[in-house]
């Protein structure tokens, strides 16, 4: 899933300040999972914004709507029927959701309410960790299911570095050393000798070689 966190409310208020009729649009997918932009959070934010406006004697209409997936055209189109009523959208989607709305309605200002962060897992209730960089060439098999790109702070393919201490990364004692995890995992499989190999330089062009990436699947098209 994609994780995000809500921007500080002052920042949001500053961005919506010029608009008098705002629709806060939540998303029921990833951002609901990380409790940042789902229906609940959208209702909470809208209420707080309305109260803040009232406290300042500010006249502004703020209403809410949540769609299933803000990054999918079919769902974004549901806004067609309602957008006339508003002069801006406050999107609680991830960066992809915000842009899907903005691309669909280029004349409507779209304000992001969230800071999108990483691709990761819900490790436990209320706890999310980054685990995938989207490198385009998954090597997880070779590293026992632990990604050295996303989870090693220096994304070493031939780690660990000299700063690994007590299984922790030099950057932050709360961050486990990914290479410690990889070594332990491969030891369990009896496959530690896989790490004798010198992994060659990563092909980063699969991630950034030609600008923003796209996938086209004709078999999936109408």
């Amino acid at each position, binding site marked *: 899933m994609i994780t995000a966190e809500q921007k500080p409310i002052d920042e949001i208020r500053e961005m919506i300040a010029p608009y008098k009729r705002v629709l806060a649009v939540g998303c029921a997918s990833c951002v609901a999972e990380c409790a940042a932009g789902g229906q609940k959070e959208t*209702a909470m934010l809208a*209420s*707080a914004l309305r*109260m803040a406006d009232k406290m300042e004697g500010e006249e502004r209409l703020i209403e809410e709507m949540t769609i299933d997936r803000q990054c999918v055209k079919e769902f974004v189109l549901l806004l067609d029927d309602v957008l006339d009523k508003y002069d801006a959208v406050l999107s609680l989607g991830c960066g992809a959701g915000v842009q899907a709305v903005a691309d669909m309605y280029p004349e409507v200002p779209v304000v992001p309410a969230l800071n999108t962060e990483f691709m990761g897992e819900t490790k436990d209730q209320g706890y999310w960790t980054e685990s995938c960089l989207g490198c385009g060439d998954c090597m997880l098999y070779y590293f026992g299911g632990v990604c050295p790109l996303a989870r090693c702070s220096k994304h070493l393919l031939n780690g660990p570095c000299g700063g690994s201490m007590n299984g922790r990364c030099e950057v932050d004692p709360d961050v486990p050393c990914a290479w410690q995890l990889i070594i332990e995992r491969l030891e369990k499989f009896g496959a530690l000798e896989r790490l004798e190999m010198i992994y060659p330089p990563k092909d980063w062009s699969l991630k950034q070689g030609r600008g923003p990436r796209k996938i086209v699947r004709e078999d999936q098209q109408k």
Partner: protein
Amino acid sequence: MNDQEKPVLALFYCRNVPQSGEAERQTLEEKYGRSVRFFPIPCSGRLEPVHLLKALEEFADAAYIIACPEGTCRYFEGNHRAKKRVERTKEIIGSIGLEGERVGIVVGSREGTKTLAQQAEDLTARISALPRSPVHVRR
């Protein structure tokens, strides 16, 4: 202080609170008039921050939840969740400049749990010094 000036309380309570049935609630509603609005819920764990926020947004100067004593929640963790959600609501209202005391949780004590009537009396006293909310009254 006349009725118009008293802070308005939104009081959420779980049905486990002693003497909190329909009849008792109606009596209390008559007693308090517009200064307390009563919201029974099946368990304090069903309370969401948005309930407290909407109460504050629409009419209340303060919004409180009464939860069961530690270890006695019928649904085991309801009172824990309520506590966390009240904390979250405090953060949110703090971020827009409202005093934290406008929301709160009262956890009954294991020895001698108070009735709804007693809780209402305690709480109205507790919030009586709170100024009217700037959401409803421009200062």
